[in-house]
């Protein structure tokens, strides 16, 4: 009889746990929906309170601006999921804008300039991973070092000057659109689709999460943790160099001081999108939403003639509020 009671209790406990898991799943979707809802709400409010928000020009502009943060944030997310951090992405954007501008002004064809610039990104990411895995430096320190060093290298190359890009095909790309949608936004799609497959549907994605959760357990389960760290930092830096190319195309110059502070935008977007700085929690769609929420705030504040200083404060407050609610959700587990 006691055995039966025990079974009954187990069934109840199991049902309770199942309900809890379902609740978690629902709350996960809820956060996703909250972000979509928040974005939609901001767009609706802005559409009603300003005449200029819901115009083709402004929306295009918003998508162009948000695209760059979005791509940076996706790359950054791979690193954060491993419980690391990449502070260098803003500097990489500035540095690679110089590289691509230099290559174009020295007669390289566009395709070659792009490939070589991306290769630079690859090399920077590999260098980060080398410092972290082989020299044992903390990711924060390693990427903080390249954050300052890369800007220096970029300034040395141009001797502090700005390289103007005269290739109009190159600069025209960022102004153009396809099917009525800005080319830059299409670039988000080009990055996001493979990123989604990589993170959520390939075994490497699973490995990134495992490393973020417990690197030793991952290693003892046969995961090549060193290789995965290399992949994460290389992806982040390649995404950043890709943004460097897009930025050069958009503003028509190469300058190592560009994209100052973008690493913080990328990290904030990622965190708003539900990525945990402790690792092992994150997605591709979260940072995408996060970056467009941040961009909308800036865009809307401009249209509403809000003081630029206030924009920074609003962004800061919003990060605290969103991450606080996300933390509440996580603590309920």
């Amino acid at each position, binding site marked *: 009889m006691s055995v039966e009671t025990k079974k009954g209790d187990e069934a109840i406990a199991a049902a309770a746990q199942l309900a809890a898991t379902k609740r978690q799943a629902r709350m996960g979707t809820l956060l996703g929906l909250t972000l979509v809802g928040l974005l939609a709400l901001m767009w609706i409010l802005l559409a009603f309170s300003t005449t200029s928000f819901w115009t083709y020009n402004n929306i295009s502009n918003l998508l162009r601006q948000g695209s760059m943060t979005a791509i940076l944030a996706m790359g950054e997310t791979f690193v954060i999921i491993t419980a690391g951090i990449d502070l260098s992405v803003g500097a990489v954007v500035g540095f690679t804008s110089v590289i691509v501008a230099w290559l174009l002004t020295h007669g390289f064809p566009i395709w070659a300039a792009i490939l070589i610039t991306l290769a630079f990104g690859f090399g920077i990411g590999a260098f980060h991973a080398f410092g972290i895995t082989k020299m044992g430096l903390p990711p924060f320190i390693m990427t903080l070092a390249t954050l300052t060093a890369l800007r220096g290298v970029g300034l040395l190359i141009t001797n502090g000057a700005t390289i103007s890009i005269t290739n109009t095909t190159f600069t025209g790309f960022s102004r153009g659109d396809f099917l009525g949608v800005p080319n830059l936004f299409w670039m988000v799609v080009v990055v996001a689709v493979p990123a989604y497959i990589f993170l959520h549907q390939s075994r490497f994605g699973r490995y990134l999460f495992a490393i973020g959760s417990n690197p030793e357990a991952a290693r003892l389960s046969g995961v090549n943790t060193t290789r995965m760290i290399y992949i994460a930092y290389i992806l982040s830096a390649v995404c950043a160099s890709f943004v460097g190319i897009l930025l050069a195309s958009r503003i028509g110059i190469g300058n190592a001081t560009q994209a100052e502070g973008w690493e913080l935008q990328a990290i904030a977007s990622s965190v708003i999108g539900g990525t945990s700085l402790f690792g*092992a929690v994150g997605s591709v769609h979260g940072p995408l939403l996060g970056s467009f929420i941040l961009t909308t705030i800036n865009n809307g504040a401009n249209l509403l003639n809000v003081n630029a200083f206030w924009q920074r404060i609003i962004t800061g407050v919003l990060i605290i509020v969103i991450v606080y609610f996300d933390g509440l959700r996580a603590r309920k587990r």
Partner: protein
Amino acid sequence: MNQTQQQGGSNQAGAKTSLLVLKKLDKRFGATHALKAVDLDFEAGEVHAIVGENGAGKSTLIKMLTGVHVRSSGEVYWEGKPVALATPHEAINHGINAVHQEVVLCPHLTVAANLFLGDEKVRLGMLQHREMVREAQKILDDIGFKLPASALLSSLTIGQQQLVATARASTRGTRFLIFDEPTGYLTRQEAAQLFALIGRLKAQGVTIVYISHRLEEVFQLADRVSILRDGALVSTQRVAETNEEKLIAGMIARTIEQIHYKETIPFGEEILRTEKLTGKGFEDVSVRVRAGEVIGLYGLIGAGRSEFVLSLFGRSPKTGGQIFWKGKPVDIRKEKDAISMGIALVPESRRDQGLCLNLGVGLNLNLPIYKRLVKGLVINPFAERASADKQIREVQIKTASREAPASSLSGGNQQKIVVGKWLNHGADLYIFDEPTVGVDVGTKVEIYKLFARLLKKGAGIILISSYLPEVYDLSDTLHVFRRGRLVASYDSANVNEKALHETILTQALGV
């Protein structure tokens, strides 16, 4: 009714000097009923053991006594007065303290600084380091712990750190001290020091609550023992009036013919042999494992057994000697080499080495085999789910779903995940490093039965355990480690049992 223990000033029946009384204590987490109307009383100056399987509610009970969780219903009386015990602070103010299984102290501070943490000696705003070290040393000497007060905590073994935590908890006006599996990481001498301290505290009138899976300790130390099962109190008995079989029967509501389940399987071909293998933490180790054979590695924590198997697994490559796999010399440089050859490791620490705790049960189970679940570039989601579900069924993991985080499971079920992921992968040699630490009796038997299943399939097993009866009963060949070296080897079938136990112990201790 008529209790034998003498307590000052109590004569009425049922009105002994109970320090803490729990009445119909109840705790629910959502729909989960973790504790069911538990009635317990703790007398001043008694050692009260609490036993039960993992998930029986022992941890929940401790957390409620120490103010971490607040009860759902029921009453708690401290010296006859109702109390809330709503915060850890309140519990400590009453004099309720606990020594947890995991050490929660500051590793970068000295032993003395840890002892005085939060209560430092200050003169004119300056910390009195020397005075604190002197006083800490006196405290340690007084309670009979052989520990240096000026050493950094991180320079001590886990067992010694545990003693520091014990010293800290027992010297702050504590009147009610809870020990949760205190001997798991202790050597024999350290355990003896701890037991002596418990005896002294008891004589001072401190109430001790002692939670352990090791029933022989319960019989050695406790006055009374309470059994919990599925959140309910089964019974409270005087230790003198019960025995091990009765306790186990109460804990699991079924009889276990033989806990150390063992089948004899004829040995097959040699799977692994090491010759004078040397690496970080061990030297000149030569062992051989055949198909169907269990070799046991016995010794103290830190004797080099874990280092030896981690080296076999490619975690830290050997510096000398040779490994032969199925007769051929091999070089194991990485975990991947070991895994692809057919070695599986269930490591010593589930939390630190075995599991990705905040990730799903399914991901943990599939981690070694994702390569096989891939179709082209992407994972086949059906195969991924099927493989996880199959393993959950096969090793009977109690979990809400395959997506539930591993941290939501009980210790025994977590261990089953670590075992399950290697069954999923398959191997010829399974290494189990302390597989039953912190695991309840029921799960233990399941793990032992699993050994038999693996052996029948032609696998070999290396079993590391610091619990002599376990290695002794389960191994075909027993090796004793001391300070990184193999000091003795036995064919366990041939030797007189009782005499050997003593010999093995002395060899492991090196006395």
